[in-house]
């Protein structure tokens, strides 16, 4: 059978307006300007989340207590990127670790510099390298370095 014509269409998502609870993210970003990492702690079970939701994900109670976490931690898992989002090859492989910062129960993802891909491993101790100029953006926490 022959190919049939294509008609173009679109879901106009640009007309959509999403309100998203951002208290945890905004608290974290505000404190990053001062090189501090701040999450939220559940008074019942003690879990510390960063960025913090406004309810504990284990106890389902409202949590409002801020808690500072360290900018040092350990690698829980990692990947090494060789291609970008679209599959185009990167110039240099890029290590993306998922890090559990000391004092925090949730994990964050970032980029790891100063380590060769073959040397990165689970359990490796890392620390945050802060950007020189910080504006309250996710890029204030520029990358991780080995401790």
């Amino acid at each position, binding site marked *: *059978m*022959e190919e*049939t*014509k*294509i*008609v*173009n*269409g*679109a*879901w*106009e*998502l*640009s*007309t*959509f*307006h*999403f*309100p*998203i*609870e*951002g*208290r945890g*993210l*905004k608290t974290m970003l505000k404190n990053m300007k001062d090189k501090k990492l701040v999450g939220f702690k559940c008074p019942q079970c003690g879990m510390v989340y960063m960025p913090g939701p*406004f309810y504990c994900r284990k106890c389902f109670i409202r949590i409002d207590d801020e808690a500072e976490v360290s900018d040092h931690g350990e690698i829980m898992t990692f990947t090494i990127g060789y291609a970008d989002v679209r599959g185009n090859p990167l110039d240099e492989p890029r290590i993306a670790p998922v890090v559990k910062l000391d004092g925090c129960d949730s994990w964050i993802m970032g980029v790891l510099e100063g380590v060769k891909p073959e040397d990165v491993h689970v359990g490796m101790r890392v620390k945050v390298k802060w950007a020189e100029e910080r504006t309250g953006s996710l890029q204030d926490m520029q990358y991780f370095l080995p401790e």
Partner: protein
Amino acid sequence: MEDIKETFYHTVAPLDFGYNYRVGTYLQRYIDALKDKKILGAKCPQCGKVVVPPRKYCGACNKVREEYVELSQEGTLENYTVGHITLEKGQVNQAESPYIVGMIKLGGADNLLVGKVAGVSPQEVKTGMRLKAVWKDQTEGEYSDLDHFEPV
């Protein structure tokens, strides 16, 4: 929980998701015929009903419609509405002037074809009016080749 609202991000997606829909074999035949200023329907081998635009299955009979039928260019206006607004990217705008969208029973078809009705004012349009198809001068093999219907 008023304080929760303050902490909201109000984000807007800076993109649209684009799609490419295949028209499929039946609509391809229909569009090809529009280029020749013809309107085609498809007929069910069992109940004999003709549907326009053509569709593969007659759901009532569980049969594939295999016969294409050329329909008359004239028909009766069986239903209509008058539009006063237009919609673009979620914005509702006042139409330049009210426009008529009709459902027309073309000779030879058992269902109604939707089309723009022009050459008559919204005050004077009536169900039961006889209409005829009006084509673009230069047809291109697109839906827009069949431009509108107007009173005979």
